[in-house]
């Protein structure tokens, strides 16, 4: 898909396309059509409160950026919501279903798929096998069916075809049969996003997808993310680069010290005084003391 295939995207007024734009810019505000609703989620590490969110909703079908200074709890929030870490308390619903406490793999099968800040490409598997792993509901992944190739061959062929299309889109087709470990850091990032898309997510959560990706590839990745939202997939991504945030997000949520301190459309939020304070440190208080340092 390219942008040109969406000639009507600009035809309607922006408000009609994006009901999110009618939402007020205030922390914890409710959205017209949330795919993810978070309620009272809290996680502490020793005495440090890493995440403490009263209420947060993520609108369906738009690109939401999650920003905040280092140690704000962005990655921890991702880990909690996607089932990779346990919350001390709190509930969250995905697509109208209460999913708090659900295991990471079940959440992924529900359509909530995430990527990682440090890429997790499967180094000793070829790129195409990395992609195929993402495909959902594979018959051949059941032990009882696995030995009988005829029972999974057709599905495998369809998945391989879809994987090829995605690789093409992400400029990885020439690496199709190479081991993923031979890819550059940026290519691994792209592979991880492409692989997550193989899983046919309803909500995709990207942890710093642009980090380490060269500017040209980052540009095309940004385009992909915008297209994803147009095709109905909801996107939440963590990002530090404000140009990227301003460029592709429809909505921005700002986290500081584990709390949502602001949210709204990018042009509203980026110049918000609270946000600037959170990034630059409050008066008389150095920025370093805002919380636990996350790996970055």
């Amino acid at each position, binding site marked *: 898909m390219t942008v040109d295939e969406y000639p009507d995207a600009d035809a309607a007024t922006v408000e009609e396309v994006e009901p999110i734009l009618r939402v007020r810019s205030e922390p914890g505000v409710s959205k017209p059509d949330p795919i993810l609703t978070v309620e009272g989620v809290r996680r502490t590490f020793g005495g440090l409160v890493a995440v403490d969110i009263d209420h947060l909703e993520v609108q369906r079908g738009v690109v939401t950026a999650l920003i905040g200074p280092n140690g704000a709890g962005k990655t921890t929030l991702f880990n909690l919501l*996607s089932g*990779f870490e346990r919350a001390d308390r709190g509930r969250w619903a995905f697509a109208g279903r209460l999913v708090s406490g659900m*295991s*990471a*793999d*079940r959440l*992924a*099968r529900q359509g909530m*798929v*995430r*990527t*990682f800040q440090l890429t*997790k*490409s*499967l*180094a*000793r*598997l070829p790129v195409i*096998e990395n992609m*195929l*792993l*993402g495909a*959902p509901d*594979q*018959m*051949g*992944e*059941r*032990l009882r*069916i*696995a*030995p009988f*190739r005829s029972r*999974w061959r057709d599905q*495998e062929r369809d998945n391989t075809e879809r994987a090829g299309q995605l690789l093409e889109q992400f400029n990885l087709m020439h690496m199709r049969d190479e*081991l993923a*470990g*031979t890819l550059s850091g940026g290519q691994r990032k792209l592979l991880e996003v492409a*692989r*997550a898309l*193989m*899983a046919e997510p309803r909500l995709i959560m990207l942890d710093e997808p642009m980090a380490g990706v060269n500017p040209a590839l980052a540009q095309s990745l940004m385009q992909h993310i915008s297209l994803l939202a147009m095709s109905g997939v909801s996107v939440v991504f963590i990002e530090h680069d404000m140009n990227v945030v301003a460029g592709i997000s429809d909505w921005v949520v700002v986290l500081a010290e584990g709390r949502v301190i602001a949210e709204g459309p990018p042009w509203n939020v980026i110049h918000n005084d609270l946000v600037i304070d959170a990034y630059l440190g409050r008066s008389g208080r150095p920025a370093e003391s805002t919380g636990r340092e996350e790996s970055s």
Partner: protein
Amino acid sequence: MMEFDVIFGNAARAAFGPEAVILALAAIGLNVHFGYTGLLNFGQVGFMLLGAYGTSVSVATFGWSLWVGIPVGLALSAVLALALGIPTLRLQAVLFAIATIAAAEILRLIIGSTDAIELTGGPLSISFDASAFYDLNPYAEGPQVRYGAGTFAFTGQQLWVITVGWTLVALAGLAVFLIVRSPWGRVLKSIREDENAARSLGKNVFAYRMQALVIGGVIAGLAGVVDAIKTSGADPNGFRPQVTFFTYTALLLGGSATCTGPVLGAILFWFLREWIESFLRQLAAEAWLPQPISDSLSGSEGVISVGVVGLALIMLVLFRPQGIVGNRTEMLIDDG
């Protein structure tokens, strides 16, 4: 005069004998655990022990038919995999390794304890009547009947064991080949590479690991069954931790995560071991070595040959880390 044909014959007999069959089966099972799933199982001998004792005790103590005893042995291996896996598969790799080696040792010590004499024979070996198996032997049997040439020769009974044994190796190898080339096998490899990546794509890591542990454990149990039939019994001393380490040696020699690697590795392991041992025995017999050296050598040929195989493994890891049939680029890839 050194008789190299004798040395070679001895080595070849070991390479294709029942010991190699047992090692090959254990290595095929370990390959499912370690090679494909990345499970650091250091208790492979525990599965073999249950296969051997399950069969032996069923027949010797309970008087059941051998054809009941064999499935009992295999079932016990599967039960061990489940009992071991449920509490430990969520542990880190290193902790899992410790748990497995401990479990295998605990089993050996319990089965070999004097309190267990009535059930398992305790520290004494247990023996049973395996005639149900040997009655099916199609090969002629007799004091003078040998199949083969020179020292590479087997009795009819031995030939029957290795015929069935290598058939089992082929079947187990084929079964593993069929399941690991499937999407199921792809999930195993993804878990080996990064379990959180697999999880993030919706794979139930625990369930897959458990399936792999049971499959590899039952194949090791089969190795134990062959061992029990070969010796018509079992001895706790035959199931010390080094059996697991030899299995790792064979697997790494041949090539981890390959289909033929564990089998080739087992053959090569026994060939090398027997060749060196046989060579040392001949050296001593020829009195080519100075007396003090040959005196200290005598009786410890076996130990030295194991040492040399260990040295060969070190060289292999240094110069050909992928094993004989492994893929070098795959092996040397950076984990980052």
